[in-house]
Protein backbone atom coordinates (compact mmCIF):
# COMPACT_ATOMS: atom_id res chain seq x y z
CA UNK A 1 0.00 0.00 0.00
CA UNK A 2 2.67 2.51 1.00
CA UNK A 3 4.75 1.44 -2.01
CA UNK A 4 1.73 2.36 -4.17
CA UNK A 5 1.45 5.74 -2.48
CA UNK A 6 5.17 6.37 -2.94
CA UNK A 7 4.84 5.51 -6.64
CA UNK A 8 1.92 7.91 -7.04
CA UNK A 9 3.83 10.62 -5.18
CA UNK A 10 6.83 10.21 -7.49
CA UNK A 11 4.60 10.35 -10.59
CA UNK A 12 2.80 13.43 -9.22
CA UNK A 13 6.06 15.22 -8.48
CA UNK A 14 7.41 14.42 -11.94
CA UNK A 15 4.21 15.56 -13.69
CA UNK A 16 3.99 18.77 -11.67
CA UNK A 17 7.67 19.52 -12.39
CA UNK A 18 7.09 19.09 -16.13
CA UNK A 19 3.94 21.21 -15.83
CA UNK A 20 5.82 24.09 -14.17
CA UNK A 21 8.71 23.83 -16.65
CA UNK A 22 6.24 23.93 -19.56
CA UNK A 23 4.44 26.95 -18.09
CA UNK A 24 7.71 28.86 -17.62
CA UNK A 25 8.77 27.98 -21.16
CA UNK A 26 5.43 29.23 -22.50
CA UNK A 27 5.97 32.54 -20.66
CA UNK A 28 9.47 33.04 -22.03
CA UNK A 29 9.00 32.01 -25.64
CA UNK A 30 8.10 34.63 -28.25
CA UNK A 31 7.60 32.12 -31.07
CA UNK A 32 3.86 31.46 -31.02
CA UNK A 33 4.15 28.18 -32.92
CA UNK A 34 6.26 26.78 -30.08
CA UNK A 35 3.84 28.25 -27.54
CA UNK A 36 0.89 26.46 -29.14
CA UNK A 37 2.78 23.16 -29.16
CA UNK A 38 3.79 23.61 -25.51
CA UNK A 39 0.18 24.44 -24.61
CA UNK A 40 -0.73 21.05 -26.08
CA UNK A 41 1.99 19.43 -23.97
CA UNK A 42 0.60 21.27 -20.93
CA UNK A 43 -2.86 19.84 -21.59
CA UNK A 44 -1.49 16.33 -22.02
CA UNK A 45 0.38 16.61 -18.70
CA UNK A 46 -2.81 17.85 -17.01
CA UNK A 47 -4.65 14.88 -18.49
CA UNK A 48 -2.03 12.55 -16.98
CA UNK A 49 -2.54 14.26 -13.61
CA UNK A 50 -6.30 13.66 -13.88
CA UNK A 51 -5.57 9.97 -14.53
CA UNK A 52 -3.52 9.73 -11.33
CA UNK A 53 -6.55 11.28 -9.56
CA UNK A 54 -8.72 8.47 -11.06
CA UNK A 55 -10.76 11.06 -12.98
CA UNK A 56 -10.53 9.21 -16.29
CA UNK A 57 -13.54 10.91 -17.89
CA UNK A 58 -12.05 14.35 -17.28
CA UNK A 59 -8.62 13.14 -18.40
CA UNK A 60 -10.13 11.82 -21.63
CA UNK A 61 -11.82 15.16 -22.33
CA UNK A 62 -8.67 17.13 -21.52
CA UNK A 63 -6.54 14.94 -23.80
CA UNK A 64 -9.02 15.03 -26.68
CA UNK A 65 -10.03 18.71 -26.45
CA UNK A 66 -7.07 20.42 -24.80
CA UNK A 67 -4.23 18.54 -26.43
CA UNK A 68 -5.99 17.56 -29.64
CA UNK A 69 -8.60 19.89 -31.11
CA UNK A 70 -7.45 23.09 -29.37
CA UNK A 71 -3.93 22.70 -30.72
CA UNK A 72 -5.23 22.28 -34.28
CA UNK A 73 -7.55 25.29 -33.93
CA UNK A 74 -4.80 27.41 -32.37
CA UNK A 75 -2.53 26.55 -35.30
CA UNK A 76 -5.37 27.58 -37.60
CA UNK A 77 -5.61 30.89 -35.71
CA UNK A 78 -1.86 31.32 -35.94
CA UNK A 79 -2.01 31.05 -39.71
CA UNK A 80 -4.40 34.04 -39.70
CA UNK A 81 -2.10 36.19 -37.57
CA UNK A 82 1.66 36.38 -37.07
CA UNK A 83 4.08 33.80 -35.74
CA UNK A 84 6.03 36.06 -33.39
CA UNK A 85 4.72 37.73 -30.26
CA UNK A 86 5.56 41.44 -30.01
CA UNK A 87 7.67 42.67 -27.15
CA UNK A 88 5.43 44.20 -24.44
CA UNK A 89 5.38 47.99 -24.75
CA UNK A 90 5.15 48.81 -21.05
CA UNK A 91 6.85 47.44 -17.95
CA UNK A 92 5.95 44.06 -16.47
CA UNK A 93 5.58 45.47 -12.95
CA UNK A 94 1.77 45.83 -12.90
CA UNK A 95 0.96 42.39 -14.45
CA UNK A 96 3.35 40.68 -12.04
CA UNK A 97 1.72 42.51 -9.12
CA UNK A 98 -1.77 41.48 -10.29
CA UNK A 99 -0.63 37.84 -10.67
CA UNK A 100 0.96 37.79 -7.23
CA UNK A 101 -2.09 39.33 -5.52
CA UNK A 102 -4.55 37.06 -7.35
CA UNK A 103 -2.39 34.00 -6.69
CA UNK A 104 -2.05 34.88 -3.01
CA UNK A 105 -5.84 35.35 -2.77
CA UNK A 106 -6.43 31.95 -4.37
CA UNK A 107 -3.96 30.22 -2.04
CA UNK A 108 -5.57 32.00 0.92
CA UNK A 109 -8.91 30.64 -0.30
CA UNK A 110 -7.61 27.05 -0.26
CA UNK A 111 -6.69 27.33 3.45
CA UNK A 112 -10.36 26.86 4.36
CA UNK A 113 -10.72 23.80 2.22
CA UNK A 114 -10.46 20.27 3.62
CA UNK A 115 -7.03 18.67 3.21
CA UNK A 116 -6.34 17.07 -0.18
CA UNK A 117 -7.74 13.54 -0.29
CA UNK A 118 -9.31 13.86 3.15
CA UNK A 119 -12.11 11.32 3.69
CA UNK A 120 -13.94 13.77 5.98
CA UNK A 121 -14.46 16.38 3.27
CA UNK A 122 -18.16 17.32 2.96
CA UNK A 123 -18.31 16.05 -0.64
CA UNK A 124 -17.38 12.55 0.57
CA UNK A 125 -19.91 12.60 3.41
CA UNK A 126 -23.13 13.65 1.65
CA UNK A 127 -23.04 14.06 -2.12
CA UNK A 128 -20.77 11.29 -3.37
CA UNK A 129 -22.22 8.48 -1.22
CA UNK A 130 -25.76 9.49 -2.24
CA UNK A 131 -24.92 9.22 -5.93
CA UNK A 132 -23.01 5.94 -5.44
CA UNK A 133 -25.97 4.52 -3.55
CA UNK A 134 -28.74 5.79 -5.83
CA UNK A 135 -27.25 5.38 -9.31
CA UNK A 136 -27.57 1.56 -9.54
CA UNK A 137 -31.14 1.73 -8.19
CA UNK A 138 -32.31 4.70 -10.26
CA UNK A 139 -30.56 4.15 -13.58
CA UNK A 140 -28.63 0.86 -13.59
CA UNK A 141 -25.82 2.59 -15.50
CA UNK A 142 -22.43 1.26 -14.33
CA UNK A 143 -20.48 4.48 -15.04
CA UNK A 144 -21.74 6.87 -12.37
CA UNK A 145 -20.10 9.83 -14.13
CA UNK A 146 -22.28 9.22 -17.20
CA UNK A 147 -25.40 8.83 -15.04
CA UNK A 148 -24.71 12.12 -13.25
CA UNK A 149 -23.84 13.91 -16.49
CA UNK A 150 -26.73 12.79 -18.66
CA UNK A 151 -29.48 12.04 -16.15
CA UNK A 152 -29.13 13.68 -12.74
CA UNK A 153 -27.53 16.77 -14.26
CA UNK A 154 -29.22 16.53 -17.64
CA UNK A 155 -30.12 20.23 -17.64
CA UNK A 156 -26.47 21.25 -17.26
CA UNK A 157 -25.39 19.02 -20.10
CA UNK A 158 -28.14 20.40 -22.32
CA UNK A 159 -26.80 23.85 -21.47
CA UNK A 160 -23.25 22.76 -22.33
CA UNK A 161 -24.39 21.39 -25.68
CA UNK A 162 -26.14 24.68 -26.39
CA UNK A 163 -22.92 26.53 -25.45
CA UNK A 164 -20.92 24.49 -27.96
CA UNK A 165 -23.56 25.18 -30.61
CA UNK A 166 -23.41 28.90 -29.78
CA UNK A 167 -19.61 28.84 -30.02
CA UNK A 168 -19.88 27.41 -33.52
CA UNK A 169 -22.34 30.13 -34.54
CA UNK A 170 -20.01 32.82 -33.15
CA UNK A 171 -16.96 31.48 -35.00
CA UNK A 172 -18.90 31.04 -38.23
CA UNK A 173 -20.23 34.60 -37.98
CA UNK A 174 -16.69 35.92 -37.44
CA UNK A 175 -14.83 33.84 -40.00
CA UNK A 176 -17.52 33.06 -42.54
CA UNK A 177 -19.17 29.69 -42.86
CA UNK A 178 -16.46 28.11 -44.97
CA UNK A 179 -18.64 28.08 -48.06
CA UNK A 180 -16.44 29.54 -50.76
CA UNK A 181 -18.17 32.08 -52.93
CA UNK A 182 -16.15 31.72 -56.11
CA UNK A 183 -12.74 30.61 -57.30
CA UNK A 184 -10.50 28.00 -55.74
CA UNK A 185 -8.20 30.17 -53.62
CA UNK A 186 -11.00 31.26 -51.27
CA UNK A 187 -10.69 33.50 -48.22
CA UNK A 188 -10.72 37.26 -48.27
CA UNK A 189 -7.83 39.29 -46.95
Amino acid at each position, binding site marked *: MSADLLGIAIIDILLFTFLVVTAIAIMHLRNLFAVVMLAGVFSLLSASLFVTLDAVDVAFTEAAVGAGIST*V*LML*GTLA*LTVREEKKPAHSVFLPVLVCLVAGAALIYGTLDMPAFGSADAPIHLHVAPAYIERTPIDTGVPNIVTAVLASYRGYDTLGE*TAVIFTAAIAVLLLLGA*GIRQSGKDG*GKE
Partner: protein
Amino acid sequence: MKHHSILRVVSKLLIPPIILYALYVQWHGDYGPGGGFQAGVVFAVAFILYALVYGVDEMMRILPPRLLHALAGIGVLIYAGTGVVTMLLGENFLGYNVLAHDPKHGQEWGIIVVELGVGITVASVMMSIFIAFACHNPPIKDEEW
Protein backbone atom coordinates in the same frame (compact mmCIF):
# COMPACT_ATOMS: atom_id res chain seq x y z
CA MET B 1 1.32 17.60 -50.39
CA LYS B 2 1.58 14.95 -53.03
CA HIS B 3 4.96 13.54 -52.04
CA HIS B 4 4.41 13.01 -48.31
CA SER B 5 3.87 9.28 -48.78
CA ILE B 6 4.50 8.39 -45.14
CA LEU B 7 1.92 10.88 -43.88
CA ARG B 8 -0.62 9.71 -46.44
CA VAL B 9 -0.17 6.00 -45.72
CA VAL B 10 -0.07 6.39 -41.94
CA SER B 11 -3.14 8.63 -41.86
CA LYS B 12 -5.06 6.20 -44.06
CA LEU B 13 -4.15 3.43 -41.64
CA LEU B 14 -5.09 5.51 -38.59
CA ILE B 15 -8.43 6.98 -39.67
CA PRO B 16 -10.57 3.77 -39.54
CA PRO B 17 -9.46 2.83 -35.99
CA ILE B 18 -10.02 6.43 -34.86
CA ILE B 19 -13.62 6.37 -36.15
CA LEU B 20 -14.18 2.91 -34.67
CA TYR B 21 -12.85 4.14 -31.32
CA ALA B 22 -15.12 7.18 -31.47
CA LEU B 23 -18.14 4.93 -32.00
CA TYR B 24 -16.99 2.66 -29.16
CA VAL B 25 -16.67 5.64 -26.82
CA GLN B 26 -20.07 6.95 -27.95
CA TRP B 27 -22.02 3.76 -27.34
CA HIS B 28 -19.98 2.50 -24.41
CA GLY B 29 -20.08 5.73 -22.41
CA ASP B 30 -22.36 4.22 -19.79
CA TYR B 31 -19.91 1.37 -19.11
CA GLY B 32 -16.49 2.94 -19.51
CA PRO B 33 -15.01 6.42 -19.52
CA GLY B 34 -16.25 8.77 -22.17
CA GLY B 35 -19.55 9.67 -23.72
CA GLY B 36 -20.97 11.90 -26.39
CA PHE B 37 -18.59 14.80 -25.85
CA GLN B 38 -15.36 12.80 -26.08
CA ALA B 39 -16.71 10.61 -28.89
CA GLY B 40 -17.71 13.67 -30.90
CA VAL B 41 -14.24 15.17 -30.57
CA VAL B 42 -12.49 11.91 -31.51
CA PHE B 43 -14.83 11.46 -34.49
CA ALA B 44 -14.13 15.03 -35.66
CA VAL B 45 -10.38 14.45 -35.27
CA ALA B 46 -10.50 11.58 -37.76
CA PHE B 47 -11.92 13.87 -40.44
CA ILE B 48 -9.63 16.77 -39.48
CA LEU B 49 -6.63 14.45 -39.88
CA TYR B 50 -7.93 13.55 -43.31
CA ALA B 51 -8.33 17.23 -44.18
CA LEU B 52 -4.82 18.06 -42.92
CA VAL B 53 -3.25 15.41 -45.14
CA TYR B 54 -5.47 15.47 -48.23
CA GLY B 55 -6.71 19.06 -48.14
CA VAL B 56 -9.87 20.59 -46.78
CA ASP B 57 -11.60 20.46 -50.18
CA GLU B 58 -11.46 16.66 -50.15
CA MET B 59 -13.04 16.66 -46.69
CA MET B 60 -15.76 19.07 -47.80
CA ARG B 61 -16.69 16.69 -50.61
CA ILE B 62 -17.66 14.09 -47.98
CA LEU B 63 -19.05 16.51 -45.39
CA PRO B 64 -20.26 19.76 -46.94
CA PRO B 65 -20.33 22.67 -44.44
CA ARG B 66 -24.09 23.06 -44.90
CA LEU B 67 -24.63 19.47 -43.75
CA LEU B 68 -22.37 20.03 -40.73
CA HIS B 69 -24.23 23.23 -39.78
CA ALA B 70 -27.54 21.40 -39.97
CA LEU B 71 -26.20 18.49 -37.91
CA ALA B 72 -24.93 20.88 -35.19
CA GLY B 73 -28.49 22.09 -34.71
CA ILE B 74 -30.00 18.62 -35.04
CA GLY B 75 -27.85 17.35 -32.15
CA VAL B 76 -29.17 20.05 -29.80
CA LEU B 77 -32.71 19.35 -31.05
CA ILE B 78 -32.31 15.61 -30.33
CA TYR B 79 -31.28 16.45 -26.77
CA ALA B 80 -34.01 19.02 -26.15
CA GLY B 81 -36.53 16.89 -28.07
CA THR B 82 -35.95 14.01 -25.65
CA GLY B 83 -36.96 16.38 -22.88
CA VAL B 84 -40.10 17.41 -24.78
CA VAL B 85 -41.00 13.75 -25.41
CA THR B 86 -40.71 12.92 -21.72
CA MET B 87 -42.89 15.94 -20.95
CA LEU B 88 -45.52 14.75 -23.44
CA LEU B 89 -45.42 11.33 -21.74
CA GLY B 90 -46.26 13.01 -18.46
CA GLU B 91 -42.86 13.27 -16.76
CA ASN B 92 -40.64 16.26 -16.07
CA PHE B 93 -38.43 17.74 -18.77
CA LEU B 94 -35.63 15.14 -19.28
CA GLY B 95 -37.24 12.72 -16.80
CA TYR B 96 -36.31 9.54 -18.62
CA ASN B 97 -38.26 7.11 -16.44
CA VAL B 98 -41.27 7.08 -18.78
CA LEU B 99 -39.31 6.22 -21.94
CA ALA B 100 -39.67 2.46 -21.35
CA HIS B 101 -41.85 0.15 -19.25
CA ASP B 102 -39.12 -0.21 -16.65
CA PRO B 103 -37.80 3.12 -15.24
CA LYS B 104 -34.24 1.75 -15.33
CA HIS B 105 -34.52 0.94 -19.04
CA GLY B 106 -36.09 4.35 -19.58
CA GLN B 107 -33.05 5.94 -17.96
CA GLU B 108 -30.70 3.90 -20.15
CA TRP B 109 -32.60 4.86 -23.30
CA GLY B 110 -32.69 8.52 -22.32
CA ILE B 111 -28.97 8.60 -21.59
CA ILE B 112 -28.10 6.90 -24.89
CA VAL B 113 -30.27 9.30 -26.90
CA VAL B 114 -29.06 12.51 -25.27
CA GLU B 115 -25.43 11.33 -25.53
CA LEU B 116 -26.04 10.77 -29.24
CA GLY B 117 -27.32 14.35 -29.50
CA VAL B 118 -24.22 15.65 -27.68
CA GLY B 119 -21.95 13.57 -29.92
CA ILE B 120 -23.54 14.81 -33.15
CA THR B 121 -23.38 18.46 -32.05
CA VAL B 122 -19.80 18.30 -30.78
CA ALA B 123 -18.47 16.44 -33.84
CA SER B 124 -20.14 18.73 -36.37
CA VAL B 125 -19.27 21.91 -34.44
CA MET B 126 -15.59 20.93 -34.23
CA MET B 127 -15.49 20.14 -37.94
CA SER B 128 -17.38 23.34 -38.89
CA ILE B 129 -14.96 25.48 -36.87
CA PHE B 130 -11.99 23.70 -38.42
CA ILE B 131 -13.39 24.23 -41.92
CA ALA B 132 -14.05 27.89 -41.14
CA PHE B 133 -10.39 28.35 -40.16
CA ALA B 134 -9.00 26.21 -42.96
CA CYS B 135 -11.02 27.97 -45.69
CA HIS B 136 -9.92 31.34 -44.39
CA ASN B 137 -6.24 30.45 -44.66
CA PRO B 138 -4.22 30.19 -47.80
CA PRO B 139 -3.20 26.52 -48.01
CA ILE B 140 0.26 25.80 -46.57
CA LYS B 141 2.83 25.41 -49.29
CA ASP B 142 5.07 22.36 -49.38
CA GLU B 143 8.21 24.47 -48.90
CA GLU B 144 6.92 25.74 -45.57
CA TRP B 145 6.85 22.29 -43.96
